[in-house]
């Protein structure tokens, strides 16, 4: 998958949890999942689990803790799939 494809899939995974859909519509790699998209921190666990299922990867808790932006998630996924 290309970085753009991973980005789009991550955005679609986050969509049900985002309380700022207008920000999600123009999301960039730098967009903060918690601050900009207003995803509840407890829901971030659900996002990580859905990423694991969607991309068939395993995300360690310490790596998940480092995910702040959409770009962080994309890079994590691309590294796991490399």
């Amino acid at each position, binding site marked *: 998958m290309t970085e753009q494809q991973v980005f789009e899939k991550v955005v679609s995974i986050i969509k049900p949890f985002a309380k700022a859909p207008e920000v999600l519509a123009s999301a960039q790699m730098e967009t903060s999942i918690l601050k900009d998209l207003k995803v*509840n921190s*407890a*829901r971030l*666990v*659900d996002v*990580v*689990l859905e990423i694991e299922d969607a991309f068939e990867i395993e995300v360690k*808790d310490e790596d*998940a*803790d480092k995910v702040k932006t959409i770009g962080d998630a994309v890079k994590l996924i691309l590294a796991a799939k490399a």
Partner: protein
Amino acid sequence: MTLSAEEVLALIPQQRPFRFIDRLVELSDTRAVGEYTFRDDESFYAGHFPGDPVTPGVILIETMCQTGLVALGIYLLGLEVPKDEVAKTVTLFTDCQVDFESIVRPGDTVRVEAEKVFWRRRKLKSNVVLSLASGATVAKGTVAGMGVPRG
């Protein structure tokens, strides 16, 4: 360490009049089963509804959560950290999807059967069924909560 059912019950922070778990009849790293008998004098029956007491749905969800999230969460956390650390953590409700099929009256004993969906980064999600002693299902769904430091 593995906490016993009695130890888990003692660590549950909710107390009367907001405690809806009398017994833990089963407890493991994947499952918890609890029971509670609704007393005739529960405070909410006075208003829900006058002359026709029915246990509020939100109280039934809380009952499902006290077994399926709080008790099971305490047990799971106890497998990872010392008991005194468990006591410093409280499980906060995050989200749920529950369907109701029947009602609970004063004096009814309910049974909550919870199966762990996942336990990650101190977030617990469980599939939970609440039933009457007759076996009739009252409510079922998914509940989730997260362990955070107390105070």
